[in-house]
């Protein structure tokens, strides 16, 4: 999204337990972590990083409700106002027959709405390429990254050495 680049100083860990302890240490030293990258979801990470709960499910509820009222409202309008037809001797406004379609549209709107919300919030989309710090982050390495701009590089080096990072690199992304 943003065009300007930044220099990132990052360390790679071999184990998620080491990663959690390192983050706790960084918190204790009041180091300003840019982000943490892991190959799989690590339990307890959101607690030590003080991440707030995702609001994506609220979007899901809103889009789901939208789908519910769209489907139910549209069928109600069609079959009672616009084009009333009698099917199998049932009343025009046949609620049981509407429910499966209402359900489907609720799920469809919630699913698509949440995907679009998620992509928008994360700045993802067609044609967007996100810089990858290290390919092994998607395989078996756990990474803590700092921005170098306002940081004391020596303090970070000492931090990585203390917490047992296997490798330390600098990269401009």
């Amino acid at each position: 999204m943003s065009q300007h680049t930044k220099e990132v100083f990052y360390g790679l860990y071999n184990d998620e337990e080491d990663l959690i302890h390192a983050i706790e240490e960084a918190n204790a030293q009041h180091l300003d972590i840019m982000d943490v990258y892991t190959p799989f979801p690590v339990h307890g990470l959101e607690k030590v990083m003080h991440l707030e709960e995702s609001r994506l499910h609220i979007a899901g509820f809103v889009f789901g409700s939208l789908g519910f009222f769209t489907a139910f409202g549209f069928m109600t309008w069609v079959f009672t106002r616009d084009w009333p037809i009698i099917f199998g001797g049932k009343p025009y406004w046949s609620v049981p027959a509407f429910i499966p379609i209402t359900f489907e549209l609720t799920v469809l709107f919630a699913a698509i709405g949440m995907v679009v919300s998620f992509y928008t919030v994360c700045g993802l989309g067609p044609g967007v390429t996100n810089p990858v710090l290290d390919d092994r982050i998607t395989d078996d390495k756990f990474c803590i990254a700092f921005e170098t701009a306002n940081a004391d590089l020596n303090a970070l080096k000492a931090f990585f050495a203390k917490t047992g990072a296997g490798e330390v690199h600098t990269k401009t992304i």
Partner: protein
Amino acid sequence: MEMMSGDHSFTMTGRERNVLFGFMGLGLLCIVLTLIGDDAVHSRFWSNYLINAVFFTGVSFIALFIIAAFTTTYTGWYIVVKRIWEAYAQFLWVGLILMLVLIAGIWGHFHHLYHWADEAAVAEDPVLLGKSSFLNKYWYTFGTLIILGTWYFFFARPMRKMSLKEDAEGHDTSFSLYRKYKKYAAIFLPIGAFTSAAMIWQWVMSVDAHWYSTMYAWYATSSWFVACLALTIMMVIYLKGRGVLPFVTTEHLHDLGKYLFAFSIFWTYLWFSQYMLIWYANVGEETVYFHTRINEYPVLFYGNLVLNFVVPFFVLMRNDTKRKTGSLFFVAFVVLLGRFLDFFQMVKPGVLHTTHEALAHHGEEAATEAAHHASTFTAGFTIPGLLEIGTFLGFLAFFIFFVFKQMEKAPLVPKNDPYLAESLHHHVQ
């Protein structure tokens, strides 16, 4: 593991015993009062008995089914509450005795719960005659004895014994005891799934002997499933408050809450599937079931959906309501009430109908009068009266007393279970 010190045994307190016996006494009193004020064939007493017997037998069956399913699927998180479900499953032999009373009633003509058990009526009724190869007292008797006996004697009891043996002896290097346990669990799944359907047709659905529905067995089993989950959640929260389940954390309650949420939706899905198919096809033999319930039992019909779908769906939808003890307990309580109502409305209309036929047969005009007033509220039939609630509480107290007795026999933590460590470190968020 240092946190595993202590024996984690459970002993019923004197107060618990008194309260449970108090409620059992209340239940007994309600049963006696029901019998005193009942009609000539005691339809109110017998239908209450059927509802409660089937309800608690079903809960214990589902507990066994959950253990079997979780064992087969390598589930780890539930180990800290496994002993509760093991205790529930042992209730199956009491269920067998409860059903024996109903069987004796069919042979001795004590009750008229089932229209198909009336030979004279079957002979002149082509529908009942057509179903008589399945709906007859031999199938009911031997089906119940063999199937319920299989559940208990070949699965619930040996699996419990293996679990206790595991506690005492631990495992050899090849985990042969646990492998044997897994085999029992895997074999029980198909057997339990098919036979429970046959039992529901016999015990509950055949109350409406003329009716046809292919969704019914699933629908009733899912009702049992939700009932078992609601009872488990309330039991776990109570025992945790008492301090005897220190390893059950918010994470385990969160998972139990998710199960309650999911299976409430599953039940609603099956309820609706049955309703919509019948509504669409509009075949008289099928619609009569819902026609009766919508017109003559509207409180039960709509209340069922509110208690069993609307409340759990909207309350448990959020993340935090599944993690907070208060809201989870509240929903479990409402749903347990809803489950009772669900079985109540499955059984009562059919029994009332059969009773009228039976009484008309016996020429008792006065009693058939109730048939013409079925659209007005009648406590005990169109809505549960105080006696129904008291009887249910009595059975519930008896069930809990039995479960506590079972839990006293073994530590609440199966200390040698291979998945115990996973359960202790369970983390869902």
